[in-house]
């Protein structure tokens, strides 16, 4: 999309008319080569990682094959392992997290970029960045001590009273479970959305806003209908960052999700997620099939990320607008 509009023919000033050596001397070719090596190393690291996981999960792959994806049992004693409840838990908690974090994050970033005076915006930005630095174990402990009682005593009963007819909110309110894990995750991923979206919104050229206002739009209309779409790809990029973080979060989720490998439509039910079960059980796992099954779960998470990313990209391409000038999602 935009890369072709901003990059001048990338093969050198006039392709073919100058020798390789003279291009080399000018430095462009070297720069291209060096940066290519670094970009390639990213792919190399990822491929190596997937390869390592593949090789280290050979036992369960041979023993369970594709049944691993649909088995609901996780039994380290009788060596029967299946990933389905964890896949479900990962998807549900990430969905809840994004459902909460995306509107919150975009809203906050709009405020910081458009409305807040520069000083206030910068100061608040420092602090919001700090949210990304809080160790997940602290999120977990605060989750247990503060979020869980809040959920159990106030929020979950309120949800049951008002929306209890939905299958989403059935079952006893323990306080822990998918919803709580999703809420804690939302807090953890919101700084990524705010931070990056704010920067992207700030770099939208002033002319865009002024043009909209000159045409008589209200402040909100110019923001929502002109500035935000202009910054769309950057904002989507930040949501990708947030999704990735939510999928891979281990400690905090493992402390509030309830750790019962159940599949339930209710958000109030306890469950488990892939990253959480790996973090919980890997250090104590003994026995090759057990450890390798945990590693295979890691591989499954990769696959999940792959698929979710692909779906999201398809979504973007099919709803893509012209005129979005910033970056590539």
């Amino acid at each position, binding site marked *: 999309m*935009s890369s072709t509009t901003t990059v001048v023919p990338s093969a050198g000033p006039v392709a073919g008319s100058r020798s390789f050596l003279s291009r080399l001397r000018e430095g462009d070719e070297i720069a291209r080569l060096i940066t290519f090596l670094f970009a390639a190393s990213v792919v190399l690291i990822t491929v190596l990682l997937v390869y390592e996981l593949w090789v280290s999960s050979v036992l369960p792959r041979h023993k369970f094959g594709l049944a691993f994806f649909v088995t609901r049992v996780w039994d380290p004693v009788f060596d029967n392992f299946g990933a389905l409840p964890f896949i479900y838990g990962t998807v549900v908690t990430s969905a809840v997290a994004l459902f909460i974090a995306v509107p919150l994050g975009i809203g906050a970033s709009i405020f910081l970029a458009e409305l807040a005076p520069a000083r206030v915006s910068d100061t*608040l930005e420092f602090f*919001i*960045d700090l949210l990304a630095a809080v*160790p997940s174990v602290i999120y977990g402990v605060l989750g247990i001590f503060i979020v869980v009682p809040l959920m159990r005593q106030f929020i979950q009963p309120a949800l049951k009273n008002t929306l209890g007819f939905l299958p989403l909110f059935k079952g006893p309110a323990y306080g822990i479970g998918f919803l709580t894990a999703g809420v804690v995750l939302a807090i953890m991923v919101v700084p990524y959305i705010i931070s*990056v979206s704010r920067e992207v919104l700030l770099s939208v*050229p002033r002319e865009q806003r002024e043009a909209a206002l000159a045409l008589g739009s209200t402040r909100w209309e110019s923001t929502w209908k002109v500035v935000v779409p202009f910054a769309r790809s950057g904002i989507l990029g930040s949501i990708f960052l947030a999704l990735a973080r939510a999928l891979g979060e*281990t400690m905090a989720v493992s402390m509030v999700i309830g750790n019962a490998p159940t599949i339930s439509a209710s958000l109030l039910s306890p469950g488990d997620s892939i*990253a959480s079960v790996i973090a919980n059980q890997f250090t104590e796992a003994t026995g090759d099939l057990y450890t390798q099954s945990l590693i295979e779960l890691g591989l499954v998470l990769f696959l999940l990320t792959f698929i979710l990313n692909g779906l999201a990209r398809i979504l973007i391409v099919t709803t893509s607008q012209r005129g979005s000038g910033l970056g590539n999602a």
Partner: protein
Amino acid sequence: MNPRLRWRKFVSNFMLTMTGCCALIAVSVLFFILGNLVYRGGTSINWNFFTKLPVPVGETGGGMANAIVGSGKLLLLATLFGVPIGFLGAVYLAEFSGNKVAFVVRYAADLLNGAPSIVIGIFAFTLVVHPFKHFSTLAGGVALGIMMIPITLRSTEGFLLGVPRNLREGAMALGASKWKTIVTVIVPAAYRGILTAILLAFARVAGETAPLIFTALGNSYWSHGWNEPTASLPVVIWNYALSAYDDWHRQAWAAGLVLLALILVINILARAILSRGMSVPRA
């Protein structure tokens, strides 16, 4: 003023107030967390905390000096390893590459980003610990560095591509070669965003525990050089917070507070140092 306009104005004010609320919620969560850390751990912060080695439970006068220094060393290594790869890779994607290569690299970065930190730790273990038969600060730095790459890469690329065309074309019109344009015009124009991305990645890995457990392990004493296991704040917090002893709980909170303060300071310093001579007015 016709009714339609009144409605639009109302919507405008309402939505903008809502965004204010969103920002308020985000910031209050942070202050709530900070407040909790101060309340629960504030009493444990004293001079000893910063200068002494940890002591077993029940004894007083211990500190986390080795964990603070250890975290510093690990983060330094992580930055030196992860940022150049992410940054230069992003330069390639934004300036030199074709669409196909860019797609593959971006996808790979997104995959890497979604890997649970414990998996990265296991990976770094097989890469750096297993061959050398001992845990080391180097291994921990590599693990954290790998985690910094995707965030740095994706965000930097986004901001580089966001630099307006007229700036690029102006430089080229003046005869600058491609890489000179990048170094002198494009990167400075996008530097704010790039710095944000790097600091975000830095903040993220600063609080990570799982990758360090299998790489840097931990150390009750000082760690010398880069080849020994080292203590680090997140691992110490994890050990202490999940223990049975109240004193250790307080120290864990205090350590969390110190970690956040450290990140804040580095944030401020980085922006201050790098903004000299690079300020481009906001759009």
